[in-house]
């Protein structure tokens, strides 16, 4: 059977692929009327695991055993399917029968109905946006149909802890082909694809690789940035958890093209599952001789190690990340020299992020032209977005670059929760910007976003509605960058502190005339003069909210009002004496005893005691309490 035995030629890899293919034999949509065999795919991404998917696996296994079905049904745990909102997800193949929010007690019914009766359990299907039309299969779901899942093709489809499934699906054919093409042709192919770094500013990957290929110093290092730190982004985590071999293969191709012989994946310690699965993939790849010396019988050798980050956002900056691998404080250094010339241990180094590497194998197998079929001229390919916040369908969305924000938020992710009104979308994490409704139809690609004063960042989209205060949101981001500033350069260390002080003052009802100008002045200094991108981009959330939501700032400063009703210092809770029935429920629930009143008489809130927690408003059954 399938053995983890060293592969010494491309032919052996091809042979192994043939042998492994049956592993995926059931994973198609044609379910026969009297389907004999089934495979159950359970989402083992972080989202679904924390919703209890491993208990469901056990329950399903018990149900299989109870019904004596182990010859007909087996369970595969996969990586993230991306539709985290509905987890835990359970999919039956053939047919791609899609069950959502499954609980252990559903197991028996699922097995009996789906396997034994050949039907489906209607109540466990996604009920569509209207809540009335059950979607039976993957293929019936708009959330998936509107996407183009190329990088995510394996996520949720294969067992990430089994390299044979990856190989069965065409895995490691990219490096096999690249070895045949030669280093230069490989480099040229990636260059021609126009692939741009998926982790931040969108620097052309092929160009970066060419810089390093031209260097003569040895050894050269190929690094993968898996220190995904932007709050609101989890695409790298999902790729590592769902398809770790794709990242390894991308790094292999990069190393081959640039002459790198050693590599590290720098991954956040906060991602234990990603570290575990990457470790398994790496061990299996090593056993197959896909990592190590003389890969697939060639003269190409590449050694790869995993380094765990230790909790510092700034280590996403390339020079800081290299310092961290060296065992030092992760403080960025001035560039140039750029890492392609002098990077890790002063040697030529290329750093790309997880998603970038996950794109590479397909560029080689299908060619640069095929890659360019998607996306725009200057931003070719697809991009994964992590859509979170106040949308109905949070999750991972992969679409060609250049589609509109509206398409992502309203078509794919089904719009805003609770019929609330869209207010803004925050893109690019702490370095990014908040874009208003008027920009929803702008295309999403590197250059359009930059032109709009935002940036792609890693692709986190946090959607906010009218209940979100934009000043508070800006304050939130500054709190984050201020805490994550390494403290090395003055503008970032001191400037972010002072900007935060002003924002806190404004949110606390102490805003003064001139505060907005002061924010703009500090922002300018930070942008122009900070040492690294963290400090240079830290003012973006403030600048973009000032640009598009200036009136909210003015309301806070001049009218001492928070229009979204978020900044507690600017709020007051009032009881409408007309509506109050004197039921005393609010007074009994007030944690600080701020509400007084006699039974059956209108109650009163003492504003000096009130801590504005909102409990009274939640508890009132008569709608008598309002926030002003």
């Amino acid at each position, binding site marked *: 059977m399938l053995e983890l035995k060293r592969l010494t030629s491309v032919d052996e890899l091809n042979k192994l692929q043939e042998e492994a293919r049956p592993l995926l034999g059931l994973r198609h949509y044609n379910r026969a009327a009297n389907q004999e065999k089934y495979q159950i795919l359970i989402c083992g991404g972080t989202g679904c695991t924390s919703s209890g998917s491993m208990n469901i696996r056990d329950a399903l296994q018990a149900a299989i055993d109870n019904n004596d079905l182990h010859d007909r049904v087996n369970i595969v745990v996969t990586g993230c399917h991306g539709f985290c909102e509905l987890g835990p997800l359970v999919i039956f193949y053939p047919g791609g029968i899609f069950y959502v929010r499954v609980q252990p007690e559903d197991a028996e019914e699922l097995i009996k109905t789906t396997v034994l009766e050949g039907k489906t359990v209607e109540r466990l299907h996604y009920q569509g946006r209207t809540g009335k039309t059950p979607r039976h299969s993957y293929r019936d779901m708009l959330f998936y149909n509107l996407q183009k899942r190329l990088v995510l093709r394996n996520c949720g489809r294969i067992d990430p802890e089994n390299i044979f499934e990856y190989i069965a699906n065409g895995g490691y054919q990219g490096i096999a082909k690249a070895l045949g093409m030669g280093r230069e042709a490989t480099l040229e192919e990636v260059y021609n694809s126009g692939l741009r770094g998926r982790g931040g500013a969108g620097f052309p990957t092929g160009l970066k690789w060419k810089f390093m290929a031209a260097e003569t110093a040895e050894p050269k290092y190929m690094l993968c940035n898996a220190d995904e*730190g932007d709050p609101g982004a989890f695409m790298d985590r999902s790729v590592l958890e769902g398809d770790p071999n794709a990242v390894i293969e991308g790094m292999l191709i990069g190393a081959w093209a640039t002459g790198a012989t050693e590599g590290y994946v720098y991954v956040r310690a*906060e991602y234990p599952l990603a570290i575990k699965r990457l470790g398994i993939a790496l061990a299996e790849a090593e056993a197959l001789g896909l990592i190590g010396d003389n890969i697939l019988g060639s003269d190409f050798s590449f050694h790869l190690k995993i380094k765990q980050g230790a909790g510092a956002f700034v280590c996403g900056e390339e020079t800081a990340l290299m310092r*961290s691998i060296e065992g030092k404080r992760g403080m960025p250094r001035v560039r140039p020299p750029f890492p392609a010339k002098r990077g890790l241990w002063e040697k030529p180094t290329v750093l790309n992020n997880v998603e970038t590497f996950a794109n590479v194998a397909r560029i080689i197998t299908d060619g640069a032209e095929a890659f360019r079929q998607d996306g725009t001229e200057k931003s070719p390919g697809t991009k994964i977005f992590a859509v979170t916040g106040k949308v109905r369908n949070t999750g991972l969305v992969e679409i060609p670059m250049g589609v509109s924000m509206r398409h992502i938020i309203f078509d794919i992710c089904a719009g805003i929760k609770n019929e609330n009104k869209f207010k803004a979308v925050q893109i690019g994490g702490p370095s990014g910007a908040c874009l208003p409704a008027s920009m929803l139809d702008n295309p999403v690609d590197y250059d359009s976003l930059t032109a709009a004063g935002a940036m792609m960042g890693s692709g986190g989209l946090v959607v906010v509605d009218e209940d979100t205060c934009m000043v508070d949101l800006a304050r*939130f981001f500054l709190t984050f960058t201020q805490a994550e500033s390494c403290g090395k350069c003055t503008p970032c260390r001191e400037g972010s502190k002072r900007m935060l002080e002003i924002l806190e003052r404004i949110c606390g009802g102490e805003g003064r005339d001139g505060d907005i100008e002061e924010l703009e002045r500090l922002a300018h200094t930070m942008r122009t003069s900070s040492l690294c991108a963290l400090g240079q981009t830290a003012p973006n959330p403030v600048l973009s909210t000032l640009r598009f939501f200036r009136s909210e700032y003015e309301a806070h400063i001049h009218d001492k009002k928070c229009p979204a009703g978020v900044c507690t210092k600017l709020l007051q809770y009032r009881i409408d004496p007309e509506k109050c029935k004197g039921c005393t429920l609010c007074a009994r629930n007030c944690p600080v005893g701020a509400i007084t009143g006699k039974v059956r008489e209108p109650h009163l809130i003492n504003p000096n005691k009130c801590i504005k927690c909102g409990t009274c408003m939640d508890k009132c059954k008569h709608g008598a309490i309002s926030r002003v």
Partner: protein
Amino acid sequence: MSFNRTANAIDLAPLMDILKPYKQNPRGALIPVLQQAQDVYGYLPQEVLETIASELRVPVAEVFGVVTFYAQFHLNPRGKNIVRVCQGTACHVRGGAGILEAVSHHLDVKPGETTKDLNFTLETVACLGACGLAPVMMVNENTHGRLTPDDIPGILDSYLA
């Protein structure tokens, strides 16, 4: 600020085992060694850091600099259970602050502190990357998602058994 200098000498034998594979080539070893040492001792006492410094030939001031730079490292003993409440954007807009308050209230500690009975340490974390489930927190290796403040006492108490 004071750092824990243990009253009783700590057993450095496990540390020596951790250090062994790195002594020949200490390049880049500091952070992995600190991570493993913290796994063993629960935190990083001064003696442990001094030993690491001299064995890896890194100035002790630099070791101190590294330990205080990264959020992962701790110079003082911590609780049996580590509660990490996510402060990411998605959690923020879905009420993460209320979760932190509920945990803080239930345990009667502020972020960064350990309960008197050493059962829990409360921390905040920038983003756990489980934004689809916001608001979330992690207790030890377990992620808890779609939280409301009312869920907190039950979840935390389940770790006491």
